[in-house]
């Protein structure tokens, strides 16, 4: 620190493209892939839990235990198997999103009003068609709400993976900043990570609005706030 200013603008301009830009893109990729993985796992899992209720408590406990494993530990433990590939970050982060996404999928489906479901059955929808054409679309706002929380949480957690050398903006924070006792890259890393979280969150809101036109002008207040379900809150570990 040595009394140097917190932000060295010069450094920022010099390194805007690389490493700042490259790390940002890397960060984006490292956040997006776990979300996709999480969603691909959470949808079938959540659907199964919604359909066979007794399945839910063990699954819920399972995903929460996973969630409680410190991410550093998971990164380290995966290292011997996945090595220096992005999977080392993607697998743990993807598993973490389950703790948020599964309860949201379940509660989204549970929230489909019974009369809507009944009406679908009565009109002659088969189970699969009902799921795809009625239940999932109606559950979509809740699922997207979960996705928003998971996205923010994942974006903030990716940085931890820098401790095993795969951390997107975390690399900026760790190797450019911390190891050189240089605050500027740390601040830049934090700010960009937060900004990325906000942009992605905003994009998800827009996506949800586009995908669920029927929720518009319903309750502006409720829409502004992400929904909270069970232990599903963002954060990094």
């Amino acid at each position, binding site marked *: 620190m040595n009394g140097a200013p917190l932000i060295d603008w010069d450094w920022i301009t010099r390194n805007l493209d690389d490493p700042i830009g490259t790390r940002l893109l890397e960060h984006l990729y490292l956040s997006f892939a776990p979300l996709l993985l999480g969603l691909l796992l959470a949808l079938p899992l959540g659907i199964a839990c919604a359909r066979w209720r007794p399945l839910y408590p063990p699954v819920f406990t399972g995903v929460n235990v996973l969630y409680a494993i*410190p991410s550093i530990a998971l990164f380290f433990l995966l290292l011997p198997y996945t090595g220096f590939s992005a999977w080392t970050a993607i697998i743990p982060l993807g598993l973490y999103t389950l703790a948020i996404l599964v309860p949201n999928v379940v509660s989204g489906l549970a929230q489909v009003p019974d009369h809507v479901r009944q009406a679908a059955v009565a009109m002659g929808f088969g189970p699969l068609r009902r799921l795809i054409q009625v239940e999932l679309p109606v559950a979509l706002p809740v699922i997207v709400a979960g996705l928003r929380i998971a996205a923010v949480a994942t974006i903030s957690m990716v940085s931890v993976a820098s401790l095993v050398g795969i951390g997107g903006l*975390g690399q900026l924070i760790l190797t450019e900043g911390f190891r050189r006792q240089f605050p500027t890259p740390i601040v830049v890393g934090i700010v960009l*990570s937060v900004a990325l979280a906000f942009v992605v969150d905003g994009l998800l809101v827009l996506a949800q609005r586009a995908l669920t036109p029927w929720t518009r002008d319903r309750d502006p207040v409720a829409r502004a706030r992400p929904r909270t379900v069970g232990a599903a809150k*963002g954060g990094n570990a």
Partner: protein
Amino acid sequence: MNVLLWVTDWLSAPEQWSGTAGIPARFAEHLGYSGLALLLSALIAVPIGLLTGHTGRGGFLAASLANVARALPTIGVLMLVVLAAGIGLVPVMAALVALAVPPILVNTYEGVRGVDPQVRDAARGMGMRGREVLLRVELPVALPLILVGLRTAAIQVVSTATIAAYVGIGGLGRFIVDGQARRQFEMVAGGALLVVVMALLVAALFYLLRRFLVAPGLRRSPGS
């Protein structure tokens, strides 16, 4: 499977169970840091959540700030504060509090906001003053959700307090970080297991808290 075997070996080695670097000491340290961080966070977030929820004012601001806090990369915060304040408890607390405040704040706020307006109205209509409405009606009714927020925060804090090891203070993170540096994976896995155990204990604690603190009339409301 042999990983499991190593872990049990590591866990059952007698030297792990004594001394300042033993499991009990590390466990206690970890619990201490987590408890302190949770306490600080609760002291910050619960009153703000109650007030903003009660008045309905400033709620948007509080929620937005909580959202920013949620997006903060913990290790960034940790490392920045280390550069500013040196190693020790301060950076750890800063990082953990930034992590724990959002869920507590948001749940407290939502809990109070979510009190049936009819109930709030009835309370006022019976001649309760603002403070009485808050303490006698809104707080107890919001309690299940507040506890959910605290539990979420507590589990995250327990799992994240491992970063304390990075800045030279103890806790279960020591096992994970040291194990990695020394390529002793049973130590990493053992440390992680201990963290999970603590998280489960915390979950159990909150289950008990819910049983004893929440009025039976509310037990069906949101929560576990």
